[in-house]
């Protein structure tokens, strides 16, 4: 059943094109988008693991040097790709569902952008070809800009343009890094590059190889929103529509882990790689959380928290043992779900009050008890309170850094978790528990049912992953053992 592997990219891509072409027919397009969105999480779950060679060009064995060459663009599909693609598919389904029920007259281009982004991140996860990854990375950047610019929030165009200008520095620099690698190895297939590096065909200590790491690393910083790009990432989250922001952060997390896994496979022999990743992750954790503490716009606050949580993922990868990388990837999965829940929930509050300033809100618990309860559980999961899923991954990370001989990092991770908890409790108090200000109008506005449904689904996954983490971690651990 390996024919299903390319379909994971082709289905959302074709759906995007068809929807934007036929968006005049409102009802038909709605039904079509709904059906495609339901298919997205089902395809990866129904597919078998394996490799897919585009064009059918199987790997060739060079008889002289007895080295395998991969002439085709290769998609590799394992447990890690399956779980992440299924999760992103589920999230896309929920976001599309919220969008379809919220507006009577749908906009074709917006659905186009949502499906295009999903297709791009799926391809980035699956691909074993570094240039193919770069192409979809650029497509993803365009889709993200479109999602931000399409929102009706003030100053969204400005933020989109800022993101794009920074992106047109970040992406060519990454392309330059890929060019350096191509010059050294003569191939863009990652398996071939890794083989060349490990067989000693490339001098791992040569300055050119190190510079290619630096350039690709800078592109990775832009893709994942670690410092110095943390302000723009939190900015675009706060300027997108809430359901769009929920999808945007998952795009960020997926592009972060797909690029960092590629870098890990190529550069893991260099000790400087792990130092760089850990340094920027710690910086992201400190800056993200300390800036989140001082925000008054709660969408911006969640944006900074999301950036701070990314530091945990980088920390897991940077420590470099099997247990640590498993913890980092598990944290990535949890963060996708939890941050999506928070964005959708706070978006529901914006929907019901038209206010984003925490100083002007209050007393919402009595008006929206369901939303506030689910938001409370989501926030506790993000801060790492047992028995929710965030606790499991953070516990694994702390144990991993202790066993690597870095107790400082464990203390730092725990402190960041506590500060996250403080941010959340402060906001929850200001928005839900404090007496209602007199000039706040709450009558006659309700939260859409679809948002509550989406939050409920995500909440069930959070609780299930918190109670049974082994379902995911054992599979991820096998995958990590394969690339070490």
């Amino acid at each position, binding site marked *: 059943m390996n024919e299903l592997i390319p379909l994971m990219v082709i289905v959302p891509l074709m759906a995007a094109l068809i929807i934007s072409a036929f968006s005049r027919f409102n009802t038909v397009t709605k039904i079509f988008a709904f059906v495609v969105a339901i298919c997205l999480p089902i395809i990866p779950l129904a597919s078998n693991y394996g490799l897919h060679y585009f064009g059918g060009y199987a790997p060739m064995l060079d008889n002289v040097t007895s080295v395998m060459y991969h002439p085709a663009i290769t998609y590799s599909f394992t447990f890690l790709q399956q779980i992440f693609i299924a999760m992103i598919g589920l999230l896309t389904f929920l976001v599309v569902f919220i969008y379809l029920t919220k507006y009577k007259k749908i906009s074709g281009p917006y659905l186009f952008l949502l499906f295009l982004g999903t297709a791009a991140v799926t391809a980035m996860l699956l691909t074993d070809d570094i240039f193919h990854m770069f192409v979809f990375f650029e497509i993803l950047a365009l889709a993200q800009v479109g999602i931000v610019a399409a929102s009706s929030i003030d100053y969204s165009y400005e933020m989109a343009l800022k993101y794009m200008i*920074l992106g047109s520095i970040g992406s060519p620099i990454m392309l330059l890094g890929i060019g350096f690698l191509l010059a050294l190895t003569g191939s863009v297939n990652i398996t071939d590059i890794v083989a060349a590096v490990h067989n000693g065909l490339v001098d791992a200590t040569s*300055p050119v190889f190190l510079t290619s790491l630096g350039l690709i690393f*800078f592109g990775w910083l832009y893709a994942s929103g670690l410092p110095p790009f943390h302000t723009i990432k939190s900015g675009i989250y706060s300027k997108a529509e809430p359901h769009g922001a929920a999808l945007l952060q998952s795009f960020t997390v997926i592009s972060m882990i797909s690029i960092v896994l590629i870098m890990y496979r190529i550069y893991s022999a260099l000790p400087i790689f792990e130092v760089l990743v850990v340094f920027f992750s710690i910086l992201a954790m*400190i800056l993200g959380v300390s800036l989140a503490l001082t925000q008054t716009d709660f969408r911006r606050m969640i944006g900074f928290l999301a950036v701070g949580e990314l530091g945990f993922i980088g920390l897991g990868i940077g420590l470099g043992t099997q247990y640590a990388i498993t913890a980092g990837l598990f944290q990535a999965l949890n963060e996708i779900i939890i941050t999506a829940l928070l964005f959708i929930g706070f978006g529901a509050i914006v929907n019901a009050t038209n206010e984003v300033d925490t100083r002007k809100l209050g007393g919402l618990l009595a008006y929206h008890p369901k939303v506030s309860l689910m938001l409370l559980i989501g926030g506790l999961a993000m801060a790492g309170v047992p028995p929710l899923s965030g606790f499991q991954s953070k516990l694994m990370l702390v144990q991993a850094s202790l066993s690597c001989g870095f107790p400082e990092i464990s203390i730092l991770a725990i*402190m960041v978790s506590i500060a996250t908890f403080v941010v959340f409790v402060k906001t929850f108090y200001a928005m839900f528990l404090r007496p209602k200000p007199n000039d706040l109008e709450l009558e006659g506005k309700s939260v859409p049912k679809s948002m509550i449904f989406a939050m409920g689904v995500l909440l069930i996954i959070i609780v299930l992953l918190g109670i049974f983490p082994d379902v995911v971690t054992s599979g991820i651990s096998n995958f990590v053992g394969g690339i070490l």
Partner: protein
Amino acid sequence: MKLYDQIFDVVKQFRKLFSPGPVTNADVSGSITAEIFLIVSLVLSAILLRHVSVLLAGLVTLILAIVLISNIPLIPKFKIEQEDSLEKMLFYAVVTLSIIVVFMYWGGNLV
């Protein structure tokens, strides 16, 4: 007494951070938490230098702690540097890029 006055001045300076608009207790306490968190976490991450050299780690930690504490409140200065104007973001991006490339080309083998 100067340090004492400075610490108690911090709360007054936070008022400017949230202007225009009212300042609530939760915001001020959040800012104070951020201040303490920033100092402690930076000092804590300086201890990581002990894997390079223990003496260096001790010196850097001490100097960093003194500099940070004598410069409170840090959060207003910090926030001005990280506002979302394009110029500041581009400046920090380009500076980071040049530091990474120069460091990798000439010093990538030192670690």
